[in-house]
């Protein structure tokens, strides 16, 4: 009996040693397979607008990857394990903030095992810093739907507030690599000059739309409406993240008819059926607008996307006259 126990112990030990040897071999192979340190600053952004800004400010000094491709919902980027190795090696993690990415980013950050980009670390770049949020909820109670406790996170659709995001990215790059401050400053100034010129152009183009009311599927547009003097009438969703009920749609249609709301905005991440029905029943025009670069064809950059949004909106209103 004692002999049997000793034999078992020996077998167990030899199995454990085999297991440890395999692990050691894997470690050694990984050490061999590890990529050499890249010269560029490795940036991961949650959304494509941030990636566009990071490329504009960082120039050749940065290697930028975006988790979203542009077609996703800003709150619903799939948590792909293939993101994990990319985030694991990132120097900077740039995000929208205001809990915009709460459905996927916290879990991905934990899985990335990269201490440099965790919350409150130098590499965690929250672009909402310095932005005064709209629609801060009075309560985070779920009876109000999937509310964002810090306020509406879709400030990026206001190009003036986008400048604050650019400033945050610039500050993060300078803090990470002070030696390249001059280049970052030059890039930032060049981009801001271009963006400022476009803002003037967009404001001029949207002038005839001042006071125009519109509805959208999700609460993406309050910042856009505030910037360009339009009136954001309501959402097709019953509450944030909650699909509309038949009653809500009926009430919305009635209110839109009474208030003569001419535009229904459908974000391409949401099904067409409800916005189309509402537009038909209320006599409004439905347009499909992206919420981040790449959302629809020919909107690969932020400026192209805003061009698309502004001129599609203008064309839709003008076509009704």
């Amino acid at each position, binding site marked *: 009996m004692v002999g049997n126990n000793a034999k*078992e112990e020996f077998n167990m030990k030899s199995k454990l040693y085999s297991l440890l040897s395999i*692990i050691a071999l894997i470690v050694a192979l990984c050490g061999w397979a590890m*990529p050499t340190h890249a010269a560029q600053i490795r940036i991961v952004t949650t959304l494509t607008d941030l990636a566009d800004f990071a490329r504009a400010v960082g120039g050749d000094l940065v290697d930028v990857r975006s988790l979203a*491709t542009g077609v996703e919902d800003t709150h619903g980027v799939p*948590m*792909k394990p293939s993101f994990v*190795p990319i985030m694991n090696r990132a120097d900077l993690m740039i995000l929208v903030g205001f*809990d915009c990415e709460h459905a996927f980013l916290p879990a991905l950050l934990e899985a990335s095992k990269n201490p440099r980009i965790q919350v409150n670390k130098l590499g965690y770049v929250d672009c909402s810093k310095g932005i005064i*949020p709209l629609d801060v909820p009075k*309560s985070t109670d779920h009876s109000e739907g999937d509310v964002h406790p810090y306020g509406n996170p879709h400030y990026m659709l206001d190009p003036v507030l986008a400048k604050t995001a650019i400033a945050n990215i610039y500050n993060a790059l300078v803090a990470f690599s002070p030696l390249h401050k001059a280049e970052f400053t030059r890039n930032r100034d060049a981009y801001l000059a271009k963006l400022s010129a476009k803002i003037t152009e967009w404001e001029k183009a949207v002038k005839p739309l001042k006071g125009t009311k519109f509805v959208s599927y999700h609460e993406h547009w309050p910042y856009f409406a505030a910037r360009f003097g339009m009136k954001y009438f309501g959402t097709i969703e019953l509450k944030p993240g909650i699909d509309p009920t038949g009653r809500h749609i009926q009430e919305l249609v009635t209110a839109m008819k009474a208030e003569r709301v001419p535009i229904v905005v459908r974000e391409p991440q949401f099904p067409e059926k409800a916005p189309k029905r509402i537009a038909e029943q209320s006599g409004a025009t439905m347009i499909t607008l992206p919420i981040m670069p790449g959302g629809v064809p020919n909107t690969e950059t932020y400026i192209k996307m805003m061009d698309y949004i502004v001129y599609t909106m203008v064309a839709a209103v003008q076509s009704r006259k």
Partner: protein
Amino acid sequence: MMKKVLFTLLCVFTLSTQAFGSDLETRIQAMEETLKKQQKTIEEQQKIIEELKEQIGNRIAAEKPKAAAEKTAPSGEIQKQVEELKEKVEKVAEAQTRTSPGIFNPSIGLVGETVFGYRSRGSTETGSARPGGFDAFQRSVELNVAAAVDPFAKAYAVFNASADPITGESSLGVEEAALQTTSLPWNLELKAGRFFGEFGRLGYIHDHELPFVNRPLALAEYIGGESRTDGLQLNWLVPIEHYVSLTVGAGNQFGGDNPPNYVGDFRNGSGVNYWGRLSTYFDLTPNISIEPGISGLWNPNTDAQWAAAGGVNPPFPSVAGNTFTERERRLWGADLVLSYKPLRNNQFQSLTWGTEVLYSDNRYDVTDSSGSALSSRSIGSVGLYSYLTYKFHRQWSAGFLFEYVENQVNNQDKTYAYSPYITWALSHWNQLRLQYTYTEPNAASGRAADNAVYLQWAWIIGSHSHGWQQR
């Protein structure tokens, strides 16, 4: 101008160094040092200039609208603007003090789950802990608490109160309570305490998070419910450009229904459960992915666990007049999840096919009906489940689950089960699921086939995180 001055200074310094220096190498080094110092001085001065420029710019920007407003707007308008600004600032201040999942410390959430059911056969014929006929089962009330411990670790606990199937009384238990490191080097993460060990795809998922109503039969048979353990687990994200995750762990027991080994006695290394898992992931297209994994569980010496748990020995029913006592636990698993999740509207449409195959190769001591010891033997048995879930609406999904399992002591005892199910998620926090299950055990099992209908209602209040495991 400044650069010229600095350049002149630099030249003078360099020339004087040349004049006085004797050794060439020393001179070059000195020059380099000087250049560095001068460069630093230039950078510092440029920084001061930039800051001054910024301050002036800000002052101008602040004064311009003020001056313009003073010129154009009446005092009432200014007052209105001030009020609006004040309101905005107050909103921000208010938001910062408000309770939210991210800022409340610790975050607390409560999950409730009730299962209404009807089974066509009684528990003696189904082997279920729940009675046949009509049943309302408050399966769990889970309190989840989580927070960072310090900059190096976080901790979480799950307390579960579930109703006893016999008495109906609820008993509160610690389902999980573990510490998890957050800043270990070399992509390592250590978890210690009571937790669900990583084995397979659904073994460490809580009941209410499963894609169907009941835990697959194969997991109940071979793992013993949820993969709960008291132990230590190390996860390593392999540092390559492709996702590969390796987990190893050791603990007193493994499986919520299994007691630990050698309670109150001396436990050597052979009395501990060891497990491991290797998983990877491939994007076949931007919308289609595949995630395979393999797992293993080994307990070198299990014969003392049941005897220690209230003197119940042997644990398994007699087979062909012989009694089997588990001596060594060996379990292997392979799992695969194939997903179609369109990037554009994955919240409204997706298709998931998940399959897990388990092979149990436990070793048993066998005694005959007179109590005489026979030779110990290993029994190989197989179990699997495979499900397909199609999400066709943000609130609706439907699927089908197929199950097959062999009794781990008697592999001739086989059970098949077929379960179509439909889920209605009114929101993230309120979900109803209707499932029909036809269970078909074979003649060797001594049980009868039965039809069952379940209605599961699960809800969440307070904080809930979209964890990595629920991806």
